């Protein structure tokens, strides 16, 4: 049996080189000045100071966070009723519905976003609204599927019991179904909020370059400007903010009201 344990060694080596080292390099670039030699580093916090002292960068960061926040809210508002309606169907119709929701996700995200460009060109919409449509479109299926999964796991007997005990439909929903489906909503939030904050091709394709988010800044600093140190600092700031918000959401998940295992 011990011999099987050795099978992990090649991957541990690969993982260290391909996952851990690249992450450390981002940190290293973020805290050094540009034009370093590989061996002589000059540490600095100037990249971070520059970010927060600038007039544009904090605004863009704030815009990305609020945009991701509202995208997530809209996805919950549209996705929850959808998932609820799906969970009420007959088993075979449920399977077909899941398939119909999943199917567009298999088509390249870029292709689907590009398709919106054509539709939206018929209307005179602000670039902000266009970006919102693109975001909700791309991330809504994740929310629906997560909520649906948690709803469909709910034991039908609990709902019947709740009715037997005198609760009406609304009370049953608020006190039984909603608390039990909260874990799905929370995993949906992580699946929507996280990619929405860092998304950069949706604003670029649908916002016509006028609507800049933090992901666009990172792309610019790496691909056009070539200031990798500052770009790394921006990504580090973004990663830390995302990490904190994920931690907070996870915390919410740990305290489901009135449900004990």
């Amino acid at each position: 049996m011990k011999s099987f344990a050795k099978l992990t060694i090649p991957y541990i080596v690969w993982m260290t080189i391909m996952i851990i080292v690249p992450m450390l390099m981002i940190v290293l670039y973020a805290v050094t000045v540009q034009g370093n030699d590989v061996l002589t580093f000059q540490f600095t916090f100037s990249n971070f100071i520059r970010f927060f002292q600038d007039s544009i960068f904090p605004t863009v960061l704030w815009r990305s966070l609020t945009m991701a926040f509202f995208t997530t809210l809209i996805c919950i508002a549209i996705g929850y009723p959808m998932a609820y309606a799906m969970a009420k169907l007959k088993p075979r119709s449920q399977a077909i519905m899941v398939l119909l929701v999943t199917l567009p996700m298999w088509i390249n995200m870029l292709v689907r976003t590009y398709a919106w460009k054509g539709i939206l060109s018929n209307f005179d919409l602000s670039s902000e609204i266009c970006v919102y449509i693109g975001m909700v479109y791309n991330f809504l299926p994740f929310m629906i599927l997560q909520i649906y999964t948690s709803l469909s796991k709910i034991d039908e007997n609990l709902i019947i019991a709740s009715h037997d005990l005198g609760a009406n439909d609304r009370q049953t929903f608020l006190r039984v179904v909603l608390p039990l489906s909260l874990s799905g909503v929370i995993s949906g939030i992580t699946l929507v909020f996280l990619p929405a904050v860092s998304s950069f091709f949706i604003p670029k394709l649908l916002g016509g370059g006028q609507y800049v988010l933090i992901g666009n800044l990172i792309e610019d600093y790496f691909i056009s400007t070539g200031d990798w140190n500052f770009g790394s600092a921006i990504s580090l700031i973004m990663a830390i903010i995302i990490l904190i918000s994920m931690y907070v959401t996870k915390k919410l998940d740990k305290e489901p009201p009135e449900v004990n295992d």
Partner: protein
Amino acid sequence: MKKSRRIFSSIYMWIVLAFFYLPIVYVVFFSFNSSKSLSNFTGFSTKWYEEMFSNRSIMEAIMVTVVIAVIATAVSTVVGTITAIGMSKSKKVVREFITQTNNLPMLNPDIVTAIGFMLFFTSLRISTGFVTMLLAHIAFCIPYVILSIMPRLRRLDPNMAEAAMDLGCTPWQAMWRVIIPQIKGGIIAGALVAFSMSFDDFVISLFTTGPGISNISIYVYSNVKRVNPTINALSAIIVYVVTAILIIVNVIPMIRDRRKGKNYEAITEIR
């Protein structure tokens, strides 16, 4: 009252589905437009398809996407399976270390993982291109393969492999004949996830590729600034292929299930 609610909820579901399918139908429709316009349908034509198939850079992008997805799937499935089996027999510390590290690329925004690769390759003076893109794809696919195999391994009886070896199997034979057949479902699921992740990837590819090497996503991204109807044709073809595959994959088991259900009914009737 119950009925009206059911009608309302089915109308709601169809509206949401319409929202999902609207752009897909739109792009397929306009791929047959005879003019360049994306809002005015001027007549039926298949010229954008012809143009697409004679466009060398589109064909190359398709080739790159498919070749990378196939190699990345094969490598990540093999490595992921071997690692997962190893993990199931390792100490808890090792298992936790691998799981937590694997979480990094899955939880990090793509763009962070992507610039990590870019900094890594360029610092090592590896010139970016096909090979770096492939390495990056393998790297981000393996965690998904491991993730889909681990639950199956956890359910596996640990005595099985030991029993096989007691009966004279070498460790390799025990793995091939006893462990792998039982986790086959997880391996296939992992391979499918890896393939679709690689096939659809844009962000990581954009940052790890070099001059002249594009996959489909990068090609679309760098060509949408101008009106370009060949992309409609390309998108439409992706839609056809994906739809065909998904229908085949999903409808066959449904038909089989129904048949099984009928057989079952028949059997119970006889009884």
